[in-house]
């Protein structure tokens, strides 16, 4: 009896594991959590993989059945080892899907940031320049909505920097502060997935007082400044107003 039950559990294990992976993938997509994990390029692949895994699970159950007797010679790895194998495929994925937070912490920010200050990070050149041009052409009487990365792009072009300095901007990012340092507004840049994300930041000048928590999403309105220290231009926003805001649909910026 126990043998029969064990054989049935063992038989359904591949289908159960593949279905669980598909369910976790679909749940991640449905809840929007995938926006915090993968760049847009890869999201459709996950959806496709989830559907295919469900199809494979169904085919497995439909096409195969266990033999009534399991020949020991054909089951060399043992039942416990097999069970462990399926659990390794199942438990870490489910645990990670439950435990993974909505944003990377300041600890990881410190580990992944560079001590070298402004560092060239070539990327989506044409697109970023186009966005910078849009920002420059925007109505000067209204706060221009800009991303942290667009301010950094502008800061590296002397002509654009000069044209934009002093303009009122509205920016959204994660609040980050360290003892004896100016507070900053952070956005994470992701190429493929959250594991390769790196932080980009602008400094916040002026009155930033408020009960802001580390890594809290804030909307900042203020004046764009581009002060230079030892040839290193670090964009800064002189804050006029600052308030909590919702996490954007795309918490990470992607090329």
């Amino acid at each position: 009896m126990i043998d029969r039950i064990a054989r049935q559990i063992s038989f359904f294990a591949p289908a159960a594991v593949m279905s669980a992976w598909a369910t976790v993938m679909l749940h991640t997509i449905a809840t929007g959590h995938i926006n915090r994990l993968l760049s847009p390029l890869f999201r459709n692949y996950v959806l496709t993989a989830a559907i295919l895994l469900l199809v494979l699970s169904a085919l497995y159950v439909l096409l195969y059945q266990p033999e009534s007797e399991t020949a020991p010679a054909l089951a060399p790895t043992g039942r416990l080892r097999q069970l462990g194998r399926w659990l390794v495929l199942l438990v870490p994925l489910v645990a990670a899907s439950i435990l993974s937070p909505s944003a990377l912490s300041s600890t990881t920010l410190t580990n992944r940031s560079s001590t070298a200050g402004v560092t060239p990070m070539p990327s989506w050149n044409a697109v970023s320049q186009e966005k910078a041009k849009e920002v420059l052409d925007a109505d000067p009487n209204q706060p221009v909505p800009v991303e942290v990365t667009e301010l950094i792009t502008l800061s590296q072009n002397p002509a654009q920097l000069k044209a934009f300095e002093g303009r009122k901007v509205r920016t959204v990012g994660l609040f980050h502060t360290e003892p004896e340092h100016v507070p900053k507004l952070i956005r994470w840049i992701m190429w493929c997935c959250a594991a390769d994300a790196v932080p980009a930041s602008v400094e916040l000048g002026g009155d930033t007082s408020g009960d802001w928590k580390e890594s809290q999403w804030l909307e900042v309105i203020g004046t764009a400044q581009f002060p230079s220290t030892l040839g290193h231009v670090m964009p800064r926003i002189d804050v006029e107003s600052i308030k909590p805001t919702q996490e954007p649909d795309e918490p990470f910026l992607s090329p």
Partner: protein
Amino acid sequence: MFYAAFDLPSSPASAGISWPDVALSFFAIVLEGAPFLLLGAIISGLVDVFLPAGVIKDWLPRSKTQGIFAAIGAGLIFPLCECGAMPIVQRLIRKGVPPAVATIYMLSAPGLNPLAMFSTYLAFRNQDPWLMVALRFSFSFLVLVFLGFWLARLRPEHMLRAETVMGSARTKPEMSPNPGLVLTPRPGHSLGGLQQFTGAVIRDFTGVLLFLVIGAAAAALFSTGFDRNLLAPVGQNLILGPLAGILLAQLLCLCSTTDAFIIAAFAPFSIPAKIAFLVAGPLIDLKLYWLYRSAFQPRFVHALWLRALAATFVLVLLYSMKP
């Protein structure tokens, strides 16, 4: 040109590790890798059902040397990520492709493919891009040739796990979609092509997925918890710089189309240190180590790891010492 500013941490010491972030990184890596692994398993299943072993053998050059160069050439032409390559390579070996040739294709596809070179050019647009592309390509090529000649002298049974050398016999448990059980067709279903295909895909997918999960856990731990600034002080050193580049590549486990963007932004590293990072990473790292273990014997993977990294280091060191 896109630039980004990075934060200036208050202390050069490691900030520690955030376990929820490790979970987030792990989840991201497996979600990114699983679709490509499944694609590789599907291609592997198609090869199993539709490509007779004789056809593949007819395509391959007869001499081992020609086979090695053909494999490097295939890696250049057919872009394939590390996760997707594993099931295909295992299937090709079972179909009679010499393990040395299949292994060199597996090693060359991620690092030499045009997408990796293009991303290197983009990432280093402001830092002598053609030099970086030329160095990455030529050093990767030389390391692959070195590894190819070493692999050509090895016997398959010294490289491969037992189930990888099984051949195409489908009655063996290693070829079953569920290696713990003997499975038979349900009444009314013959062992047709669909069943063979389904079995091959499930077996390959779940077989390699196990190693992807283990590798992703290691990659998430180090890419999240390791303070990369710890290596900054030695990044310009003639000898320690390339070693730091190699070490960083082993710990961060980045895809070959992404790695150039990350390392280009790492100002403390010299050009040789960056090249060492770009050459060593696509060949082997902590995640790939576990993926390779799905097909190869641990002893062989250790030897491959040692040789790949040593060859990269020697080449980069020679370049650094040029007058």
